[in-house]
């Protein structure tokens, strides 16, 4: 087991290194960041000067070596746009996004778990139909579209909630709902199909035969079997949520990391992009590693390969 974990850790470190290297190269190939630092009123000499002060006139491998040495010390350079160190910038934007994503997941679970369960148990019923409609709505509504709709209904028309901003829990509701739709749909689907499968198993029949109430059978015996696929899905949805956060944060003027990184990509603010890529890769690799180790312990059939 220890050897397995050690090997996986090494793999993980290599993975993070690979991703950051790819990001380094990709961003430099994609265009010159200097033009962003100067207005269209700059002269060619101005541009050359800025390039020199940033070290962008050096050969690529020198830039790469410098980048790696700095990155190992947690230093990704200064954001070209905000003129501040990139790492703390990303770090300070994270809580807002984590908060939004967590709230969205909670909403998604709160709706999708019961709905999916009932839909699975009563397959073909009206509730099942409702679950299918919800899943479809969730998958076919672009975030920007749902977000604007929610603002128009709940902020403008009904005046129940604020239209934008991040100051209080009331500001959290609309963006969290917007972001929750897709995971809600996915979770409802998985719970439903998992339920359908579990209910045909022998031990469930046994439980029924023992005379347990139907609800007890579902909650005590069927639901635990959904835990593993559900946790896997939640880990995967972490990425989906961040992707959705990009658009949701723009609509609701939410100062999170999604908006930060998209603008950084668009403005070639590569220290910020690299910092985000590094943190994200690390987080995901660690999550995967943890999940794999947990599975390995939970399920003896998983090979330590």
């Amino acid at each position, binding site marked *: 087991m220890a050897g397995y974990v050690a090997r996986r850790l090494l793999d993980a470190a290599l993975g993070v290194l690979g991703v950051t290297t790819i990001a380094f190269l990709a961003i430099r190939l994609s265009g010159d960041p200097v033009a*962003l630092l100067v207005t269209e009123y700059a002269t060619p000499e101005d541009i050359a000067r800025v390039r020199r002060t940033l070290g962008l006139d050096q050969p690529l491998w020198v830039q790469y070596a410098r980048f790696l040495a700095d990155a190992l010390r947690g230093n990704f350079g200064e954001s070209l746009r905000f003129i501040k160190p990139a790492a703390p910038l990303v770090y300070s934007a994270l809580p807002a996004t984590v908060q939004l994503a967590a709230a969205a997941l909670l909403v998604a679970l709160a709706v999708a778990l019961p709905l999916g369960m009932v839909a699975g148990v009563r397959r073909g019923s009206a509730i099942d139909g409702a679950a299918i409609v919800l899943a479809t709505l969730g998958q076919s509504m672009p975030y920007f579209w749902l977000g604007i709709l929610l603002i128009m209904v709940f902020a403008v028309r009904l005046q129940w909630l604020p239209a934008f901003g991040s100051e209080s829990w009331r500001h959290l509701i609309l963006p969290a709902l917007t972001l929750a739709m897709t995971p809600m749909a996915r979770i409802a689907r998985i719970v439903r199909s998992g339920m359908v499968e579990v209910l045909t198993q022998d031990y469930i029949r046994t439980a029924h035969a023992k005379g347990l109430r139907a609800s007890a059978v579902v909650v005590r015996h069927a639901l*635990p079997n959904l835990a593993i696929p559900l946790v896997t899905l939640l880990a995967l949805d972490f990425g989906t949520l961040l992707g959705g956060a990009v658009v949701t944060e723009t609509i609701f003027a939410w100062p999170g990391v999604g908006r930060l990184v998209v603008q950084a990509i668009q403005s070639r603010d590569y220290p910020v992009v690299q910092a985000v890529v590094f943190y994200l890769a690390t987080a995901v690799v660690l999550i995967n590693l943890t999940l794999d180790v947990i599975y390995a312990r939970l399920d003896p059939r998983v090979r330590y390969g």
Partner: protein
Amino acid sequence: MSTVQRVAVLVAIVLLWTTVRGTSAPPAAAQGPNRLVVGIGSIPNTPDPHLDSTANALPAYATLFEKLVATDGKGGFRGVLARSWRPVDPTTWEFVLHSGVRFHNGMSLTADDVKFTIERILDPATRSPWLGRISAIERVEVTGPLTFRIVTRGPFAPLLQGLTVVDILPAAYFQERGPAGFAAAPVGTGPFVFGEWHRQDRMVVRANPGYWRGRPRLDEVVFRAIPEDSTRVAGLETGELDVGVLVPPEQVDRLKARGLQLGTVNLGQGMVVNLRSNVPGPLQQRKVRQALNYAVDKEAILQSILRGYGRILDGQVVGPDAFGHNANLKPYPYDLPRARRLLAEAGLGGGFEVTFHGTIGRYTKDKEIEELVIGQLAEIGVRARLEIVEGGVYIQRHIARTLGPLWIWAWQYFPAMDADLPLNFFTCAGVGNFFCSRDFDELFAQSRREMDASRRRALLQRVALLVREEAPVIFLVQTPGIYAAQSRVKGFAWRPDYLMDLHRVEVGPR
């Protein structure tokens, strides 16, 4: 169930933790009657005014900092921190500062502060985007506590124009705190003092009780960064915003119906389609460039897309609010037969294919204007293929000359409001140049050397006439700046130079 439970608990804990973080911030739209909440597309990237030149940053910086001079709205200049100025010889200007001006930290403004400020921008290590505007300055000589001279490399008439973007910073304070320390607690001479700055979220400024021209009536101004137009409009409807700028034209009626005050101003930027005529191709022929101008129905853009807000460019890239505008010029009329005839005379009666680079969300209604123009060019057989270029690289590709042959562009001439600024790029050696005419270069160089204002104006007007005939661009419109304010807001106006005069604004009870 236990795993699911554990996940739920974990999520709840994270949520609680981050909510505590969230509630520690004060609510931005508060109840105080003298707070003005302004919704704008973005706030400055940093509180340091020398490091961000985006248009949306200008009004926020202007609450904290002041320049030496500003435009007077009539083509001339008024002193702000400078009481008077005069050219001593063709390369030397002498300035006298107002006495008794104090920075927010209590220090008095002196000529040393001006020297420090200009040298900081001129230093390439500062990476100030404003460097290009004043790069003609060779040095600043302090001649007394309140007097100094600016010496330029060669005669440079548009010096004051360049100075309209230079915010004067306190030398001693800045040197003591360093750039990062200054950005954390910036100090200027403006009517408001720095309160808070939250990246991509909001910037708060508070009244400066000791402002040298009298305390502003507002206690506090909050700039909220709201990138999405529909959200900004919603914020106006719900009352979360007191003022919102760059309202889409089609939302005007709705906001009016809700009792908001609507205002509009023609911003100091001319929207055109640049035509790359300094490389081989059909656009090298003046007749072709003129034909394109005749083929575009400017009235349709103005009436249908901009709903009547804005102004058709009269064959020049600046409006009547700019120094050097030529009032005798007329817009190219919409005249398809003439356009076709000109194309035929140029030997291109069958039209031609060409790439048209466009943007989405960079300028007001840009995508719709691009689509409309392309549809109209098709009427005379010019088949333009639209390619959208992502915002971050647009300027970059403009400078690198990899846009076009046709590309959408807005020539900004605020805050200096002078035709010199955009025309500088029509020279054969201009940055990202796309047009080359010896006659133009000669006239323009003459205007830059001409230190007498009225003679310089006449020269710029002759340049404008030449530009209209040569048609290096398709002239479209001066874009509108539509803004809305709640009825309780008194005295708010947005200006063509993109600034807001907040000094006299009042907010009545909610």
